[in-house]
């Protein structure tokens, strides 16, 4: 069988796999309250990064290792890991909520910018990939603080973008209301 025919079969298999995936329910759909208070300042978990970084510092760990018994050092290491995983999970929650908010805005807009949509898609894929790598590193007992920092930057960046988008939407709505009022006023004048 020629290579091109194999590629055709691979294309069909990939399409079927994507079809199955498209029919699977989304994991984050259950969280109905994504527009609630949790969505306020979207960087709420990201702001704790400084404290997390302090708790994970190599110097602190070395200090503990030099003075405390091995059992306590192990326990501290496990706790640090647990905290990092929890923080990472919450960070992802923030990211997901922001993405969903962005989707709602896109869906309700009469026109969408292709570049903007693709950029968000790229960003979410990159976040997802990084998230998995960092989580894997944490579970393997390695602490990748630079990567955590990278994730933190992505969240902050997206939060900034969302604030700008919300501001723009607010301005548009205000202008629409103003235009409507002007038109009504003119109608009344004519009558």
């Amino acid at each position, binding site marked *: 069988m020629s290579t091109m025919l194999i590629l055709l079969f691979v294309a069909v298999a990939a399409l079927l796999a994507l079809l199955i995936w498209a029919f699977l329910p989304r994991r984050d759909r259950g969280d109905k309250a994504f527009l609630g208070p949790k969505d306020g300042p979207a960087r709420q978990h990201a702001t704790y990064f400084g404290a997390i970084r302090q708790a994970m510092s190599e110097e602190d760990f070395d200090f503990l290792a030099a003075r405390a018994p091995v059992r306590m050092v192990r326990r501290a290491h496990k706790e640090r890991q647990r905290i990092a995983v929890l923080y990472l999970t919450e960070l992802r929650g923030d990211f997901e909520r922001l993405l969903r908010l962005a989707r709602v805005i896109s869906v309700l807009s009469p026109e969408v910018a292709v570049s903007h949509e693709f950029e968000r898609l790229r960003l979410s894929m990159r976040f997802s990939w990084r998230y998995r790598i960092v989580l894997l590193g944490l579970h393997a007992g390695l602490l990748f603080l630079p990567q955590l920092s990278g994730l933190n930057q992505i969240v*902050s960046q997206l939060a900034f973008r969302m604030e700008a988008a919300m501001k723009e939407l607010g301005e548009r709505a205000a202008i629409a209301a103003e235009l409507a009022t002007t038109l009504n006023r003119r109608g009344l004048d004519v009558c």
Partner: protein
Amino acid sequence: MTAILQMALLFSLVARRNASSYPAFSAYIFMTLAQSGLLFVVIGGWGFSSLASWGVGWASQFLVLGSRALAVAELCRHILGPFRGVWCLARRIFLAAGIIVLFYALAAAAHQWRLALTTTEMGLELGTATVIVLLLLFARYYDIVVAPPLRMLALGLCLYSCFSVVNDTILERWLNRYAAIWNTCGMAAFLGCLLLWSRAFHKTVPQAAVQPVLLDRGVYLKIIPEVNWRLRSLDQQLIQFWRLEAPRA
């Protein structure tokens, strides 16, 4: 068997008033039924291997494929149509993806000119399947709920297209040995899809209850240059963000 199911489905579409909501899909089912009848008459009159049967067979097949493409377009409009911005974006992507995949399939199998028609059909089927998968991915990405009848309709159309690609590819490669099985497999797959579509349209499919309220187009056109400028400046800031070095632990 398939003819009976086709008639039953067509009758159900008309009786349950789904034909007015899904005219392209109803036309597609009608076309497949008409093709079966026409081929039955032509093959009965001139024989299976005659030039007339070959010509009528392929001409009707491309008409059926065209009507299926319209049914897919109708499906896309039903799912994404209410959301104007996303729909405009999706239309361009679907069209581009469909054309790219069609040419890919033609390039992948354009080694035998005697099978050019089968290859073109295969390309069209692959393009159709790609568009449907993209449609469902779009709906998933934007959290757009797809009603169960539309899901079944999409599933049937996509599975049939995927099956047709595989069936046609095998036929191209092992023409003599596979010709007898090819027809039976194709009919079985179509029968399965007809059952799925009959289940989807066994009662009147409700229309979208509420149209989403969008911002006024004039307002958008007035403000968009400024928004684009802001987006560009934000993008510049994003690039600067990406260039930041991660702090050392």
